[in-house]
Every structure is written in C-alpha cells, then in structure tokens.
C-alpha cells in the first residue's frame, strides 16, 4: 500500500461513496416523509442502469411495458375504489396520469429506432424510472397509510422481491456496463481521475444541498415532514398525505434513476445488484438516524472509503465487515434516541 494505491482506492471509494450517498438521501427522504424504509430503492438503480444500457444498444427496455402496465393499474384503482363523485374527478385526472407513461414509452421507442445521443437516452431513462415511483406508491402503499412502519418495511421487502423477479424477466441475467456519459480523464499528480467520478460527486453534493434546504427551510419541506409525523393533523392543516407520498416517491425514484445512469459506467450492473447497493445506502442513512441528510451523506462517503480499503485488505469479508457495522451503529443510534425506533 503506497500513496498511489491509496489514492486510487480513495477515488474508487469516493465514487462508490457518492452513489451510496445518493441512495442514502433518497432513503432518508422516503422515511422522513412516508415512514417507509424503502428497501426497493436499489431496484430503481438497477432498472435505470439496465434500461439505459438497453437504449444505448438500440433495444426497447422492458421498463416501457412495465410503465404502461403500472399506468393502467393506477387508472383502474382510481376508478374502482372511490365514490361516484370521486370517480368523475378520477376520470378528469386520467390524461394527466397516463400521459407521462405514454410519452416516455413513445420516446423510448423512438430512441431505440433512431439511436439518439447518450444524453437524451439518459434523460429518457431517468424520466421513466422517476415515473415509476408515484405509480408504485399509488398501487402498493397508499392503502397502507395508517400501518406501522414495521408493516411498511415488510411490504417494502415484498415489493423488492416483486421488482427483483420482474427485473430478471425484463432484463435477463446478463449485466450491463455502458460507456461513461462524460468521457474525459484528468491527471492529477500522476493519478488518473475520471470526469464521471467528479460528476457523480457534484450531483451528490447538489442534491444533498437542495434536499437539505428544502426540507429544513421551505414550507413544502416542512409540510412533507409533517405529513409523516402526524397524517391526520397534517390533513387538518390542508396537507395532503397522498400528495406528499407521491412527491416523496417521485423524488426518490428520480434520484434512483440518476444514480443508475451514472453508476452504469463504473461497474457492471445486474438485475440483482440493486439490493446490496440499497442496503449499503441504509447503513449510511441509519448513521443520520434516517433523519439527517448531511450526516447520511458524510456517512455514505465514509462507507464507500471503508469498503474500498476493506476490499484491498480482506476482500472476501468486505461485505461482512460493512454489514456487521450496522448493528453497533443502530445500537448507538437507539441509545442516543431512546424509543425512537418504536412504531
């Protein structure tokens, strides 16, 4: 281990850490607004990476069909489960609900045909994954608004299994590794630095900053947090719990989409890579008590670095080390805030 290797590992660690950071802040946002510990966040990443890879190769990804099916389900649910008066409102909302899915599907087909540039493909992918979020909320979680966070966790795990199985069906068992969006390399003190790494870090910083400011300083952010703490009270104040749920899922899915597109050039992503990434994002999120964005971000970067150096010294046990860390962290967290982990 000399300075060069250390710096190399550091770059690797920072790059991974930034992805974990994006994951962590999505998870913290999700929990802060909906009390759901959103295990399937990793699936957003793998779906994004694999869809982007498919588009780059001129194939139409299975996500397109999935989006259309989800849109159809939301429409059916809207029409079914409400009173006659609400049904009219649902019909009026129908175009708005279905339009994004249709437009994006059309764009995806277009891109596969015409081989549009990478940036356009990336944007389409991110939009598709972001679109999935609110629809998944509507179908799976909206009925469970009153459930304890434990039930929500179990349902989130179930959703993860569903998305995992569907992912295998949509994308097959092969992995994908795309060309980087920003294909430039710098050399700093003899150490090659990829522009992609810098972009990931920059995105991470920007998103953390934005989320932190919105959640702490703006009325919207506070309204979203209020809806999680006390849904009935929030509703009395005119804050819609459904709207906040859909917003949270939209933002989390968007972050997942961005992460997936960015990470697809760094490592090979398979249909099941998302789960492990998601869990590591958790370790970081838990550091901040699933409440603080900056702490989660710093923890994620630290985790990436730890994992990088651990893989150098004891690669077979890299995962064991990382996950064994969660338990002392949870202990420390729950001692710091007694009773916080309760329903």
């Amino acid at each position, binding site marked *: 281990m000399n300075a060069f290797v250390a710096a190399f590992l550091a770059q690797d660690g920072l790059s991974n850490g930034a992805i974990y950071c994006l994951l962590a802040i999505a998870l913290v946002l999700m929990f802060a607004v909906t009390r759901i510990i959103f295990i399937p966040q990793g699936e957003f990443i793998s779906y994004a990476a694999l869809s982007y890879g498919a588009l780059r190769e001129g194939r139409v990804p299975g996500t397109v069909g999935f989006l259309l099916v989800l849109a159809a389900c939301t429409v059916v649910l809207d029409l079914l489960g409400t009173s006659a008066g609400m049904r009219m409102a649902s019909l009026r909302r129908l175009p708005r609900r279905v339009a994004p899915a249709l437009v994006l599907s059309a764009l995806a087909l277009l891109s596969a045909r015409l081989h549009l540039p990478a940036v356009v493909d990336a944007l389409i992918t991110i939009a598709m994954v972001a679109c999935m979020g609110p629809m998944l909320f509507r179908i799976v979680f909206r009925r469970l608004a009153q459930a304890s966070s434990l*039930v929500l966790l*179990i349902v989130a*795990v*179930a*959703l993860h*299994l569903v998305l995992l199985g569907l992912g295998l*069906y949509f994308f097959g068992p092969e992995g994908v590794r795309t060309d980087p969006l920003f294909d430039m390399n710098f050399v700093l003190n003899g150490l090659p630095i990829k522009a992609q790494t810098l972009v990931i870090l920059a995105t991470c910083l920007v998103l953390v900053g934005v989320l932190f400011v919105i959640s702490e300083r703006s009325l919207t952010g506070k309204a979203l947090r209020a809806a999680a703490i006390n849904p009935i009270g929030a509703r009395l104040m005119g804050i819609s719990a459904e709207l906040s749920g859909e917003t949270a899922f939209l933002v989390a899915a968007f972050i997942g989409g961005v992460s997936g597109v960015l990470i697809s050039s760094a490592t090979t992503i398979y249909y099941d890579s998302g789960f492990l990434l998601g869990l590591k994002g958790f370790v970081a999120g838990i550091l901040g008590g699933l409440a603080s964005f900056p702490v989660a971000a710093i923890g994620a970067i630290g985790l990436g670095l730890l994992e990088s150096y651990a893989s150098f010294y004891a690669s077979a046990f890299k995962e064991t080390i990382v996950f064994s860390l*969660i338990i002392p962290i949870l202990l420390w967290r729950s001692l710091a805030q007694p009773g916080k982990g*309760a329903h």
Partner: protein
Amino acid sequence: MAIVALIIAAPFVLGDYQLALLTYVGLSAIAALGLVLLTGKAGLSSFGQAAFVGIGAYVSAILTLRAGWSPWTTLPVSFQGAGACAWAGALVVVRLSGHYLSLATIAFGVAMFYLFGGLEITGGQSGLSGIPPLSVAGTAFTSAVPSFVFVWAVLLACIAMLANLLDSRMGRAIRALKDGDLMAEAMGIDTDAAKTWSFVIACVMAGFVGWFYAHFQRFVNPTAFSLGQGIEYLFMAVLGGANMLWGAVAGAAIVTLLKPLLQATLPGLLGMTGNFEGVVFGLLVILLFQFAAEGLLPRLQRLTGGSSITPRPIHPGARLPAGPTASASLVVEGARKSFGGIVANADVSLLVNSGEIVALIGPNGAGKSTFFDLVTGVTKADAGRFLLNGQSIAGRTSREIARLGIGRSFQHVRLITEMSSLENVALGAHRRGIGSMLAGMLRLERREEQALLAEAQAQLDRVGLADCAWLAAGSLALGQQRILEVARALAGDPQILLLDEPAAGLRLQEKQTLAHFIRSLRDDGLGILLVEHDMDFVMTLADRVVVMEFGRIIASGTPHSVQNDARVQEAYLGAAE
C-alpha cells in the same frame, strides 16, 4: 387433533416425494414457529432466522465432517451455538425496537451469509457436502418416512410447549411486550429477560432446523441461509397469521407447497422463463397486508365467528396468599423535574397514608402525570426525596417500585386487547409468581397458575366485572377498560394505589359505583392517590385534596377548604381582570 390424525395417516398414503416435501414443510414450520413467538407474540421482528438456521447447520456439518462426531451428539452443540449467538444478539435486541430491530436483523442476515460464503472451514460459496445422515440403531434415516415422522413429532412437541408457555405467567409477560415496555415494567415484568428468552427460544428452534437440514439434505451451502430465506420465514409466519401458533404451519405449508407448483406451472402459463415465485410471493404479501393484515388464519377465524380466547374453569379456593397488611405510607418531598426549559414539577411534596384517599387535581399541564411518572419510576426525578414506608425509592426502576407495593393505572388505557380480561388482570399479579419459562413450557407450574387466575377472578369480582372475564379486553367499553386497569393494579396486592383519571369516560351512575368502590378499597386499608378532573367526583370522595398549577402546589387540605381557596378558584376559573 385432525392434524395429528392426518400426520399419522400420511406415511401410509403418500409417496416418498410428497413425504419429503412435507418434511420440508415441517422444518420450515418450526423455523416460522420461532418467529411467531418472537414476532407475533413478543413484537420483535427478525429477518435473521435463516442465519440462525445456518449456524445450526454449519456447526453440525463441520463437526461431523471434520471431527467425525456423530450427528446426534452435534445436536446439543448446534443448540448451544445458536443459543450463544442468540444470547449475544439479545444484548442488541433488547435495546432496539420496531424498525431499528428489523434493520439490525437484516444486517445480521446479510453479514452471516457473506461469512458463511467467505470462510475456508464452511467450504466457501460451494458449501459442504457428504454430510452423514442421521441414524438410529444402525439404520440410517435415508427413506422419507422416518425423517417425516421425526420432524413432525418435533413440530408438534414445539407447538405444545409454546402453547403451554403462552398460557402461563411468563407467556403473559411475553405477550405484554408487544405494546411497549412501559406497562409491562409497571407490572413488575423484567422486559429485558423476557425479550432475551423469546429470542433465544426462537433461535434454538432455528438451530434445530439447521441441524436436521444438514443431515437430511446432506449438503449445505450459504444460499439456503441467505437473507432471502430469512425473509421467506418471516413471510410464512406473517402469511399464516403471526399471532397464532398454527399460523406458522399454515404459512409454511402455503409457501413450501406453492413454490414447486409455481415453478412448474408459471413458465408454461406465461410462456417465458424467469424467477416468478418471488414475484408471486411478493404480490401475495402486498395483497395480504392491504386486505388481511393479521394473516390468513385469523381472518378465517374471524369470518367463521371463532375467537382466540377459550374460557377455562377457575378454582376459587386457590388464591395467592395476601401480603402483610401493615400500614404503609408514601412520602414525597421536594420533587423536581424539568424537561429542557420547562419545569414540570417544582418542589412538590405529598403524603399518602394507608386508609386515606388523596386527590391530586389541577388544570391541564399542571404536571400531575409527570408526578405520577416520577413516583412510579417511569421518569427519573432531578431532585427530591421519595420514601415508601421510610425506604427511599428514588432512582429505582418502575419494576422494582411495583414489587415494593405501588400499583397504578394509566391515563391512556394500556391493556392487551386480544387477551381476555381475566388474563389482563392476571398480568397485574405477575410479580407474585415465580414460575419460569421452562416450567411454563412443561406445565410444571399449574398450581401457581391456578392461584394467579383465581386471584384475577377475585379482583374482577371485586370491581364488578366478573361477567367480562373471558371477553377480549379490547371489546370492553372504555369505562370498563379503566376499571379493568384498576383490577389489574389490585391484583398485585399493592399497599399504595395510584389511579390516573379512573373516572374519565364513565357515566354518572358508573362514577358513583366507582366512588363507592374506591371508598371500600380505602376501608380495606389501601392508600390511594388519585388524579382526576371531575370536581364533584373528587370532592365527595377524597379525604385530602392537593392542587397543582404550573408544576407547583398551590393549595392542600380538606376538599372544603380547597374549594374555597382563592388561588384555586383563580387557577381554574380565572380572576376578574
């Protein structure tokens, strides 16, 4: 009983393949059963059950393969391995709750999976093969029948033991854990010990499953003990009904039998290959929680009008011996407690003797409930002397204070809604029994249990709720629930009784009956400290009244003198400006 008959008949009717499948059902059911105890009853959800199965399996596999032990002798070692890890794990489990605990078990499951796959001695990712099978008297368990019989015999034994346990004093203690520690500790239950024991029992059962699996399958690799498998065990418990022991069997049967069915039919049905069992199970669980959150069996039970409570005969003569009836006194001097900048209690002094009723009244936010929490050990006071019969109780836990003779009811009713009223009251008598978990499982403490239940029945008779003995506590009206809490507090044979708004939610007639009852308790020699808002109720009932406002005592004396006190009138009604 029908199930037992089916099991006895099965080996004669079914072929080897079906018997092997049912053996797996039985094995999974044992693992899921542990989770029913841990998650369904004690409220500690664990995704790590598969990791403990793995520990049991690998310990036995390594010892039989590398050290040549016989499989039967590795069974206790598997138990100990799983148990030791569970004990260590319990140190964590006890501190965490809710989703923090789930996350810890997820992390544990993942960490163990990679540990199993990374170590040399466990054979790495390819695992260990050629594990010797179980054998009895020289004949190996190679055919399907002995394995099937063995596993299901153990499963039935486990169900019987757990049913006994849940029926006993410690079982009630475990069931009290679900709603949080506050009420359980106030009844004198050692919640840390109860949680630890639940965890150890569940993990030892998992250890057995692992041990048998290793010698039945004769091959182990990490995939069988991954987080996915742990999730599957939890799903089994939840699907069948995590609150019912037979739910584990139902869930295990559904999942284990459905999987090969799906694997066989789905590809043909959908015309494509892929791993769809996961999708189907995920969808099943999602639908389950949206429409039948308690699980399939309880839903069926409700649909058919059954109830989970079965009445049992009580022998009234078998009551517990009552404690000494010496006179008692509770003395508080200068109690002080602040939360951040708010001083909830400042220099509060109070005295309650046996045979008197003291009422603590005051506007909302005066600090009355905080004071209760200080006296009962729920919150630690910043300063002040708290003496019970001359002995200091400051800084003691609520469990210790309960055992010293202070009983209480709660402002927001804390009953176990699915348990019968009688058992809820019996919970109050927990500290008067000594039966352990093992005794409970083996039904060795029946006499003590009879005494506890008789005590509970007597208290129910005393408060006038004898008719409700076998109704679920959650089905009672709020007023009756409050009185049930009083009965529960009385079951602990206290010397001083603290009642937090016992009359809230009662109608006039009921309040009069309650007042009459409280007076009879005083005449029996109890000292009673009462927080109430209803002035009529308090003034006709109390011997002395203490008035608090903004954390301080502003008046104290007989009801008449307090009513005419100008400061009290100002606090309640406001002064003329």
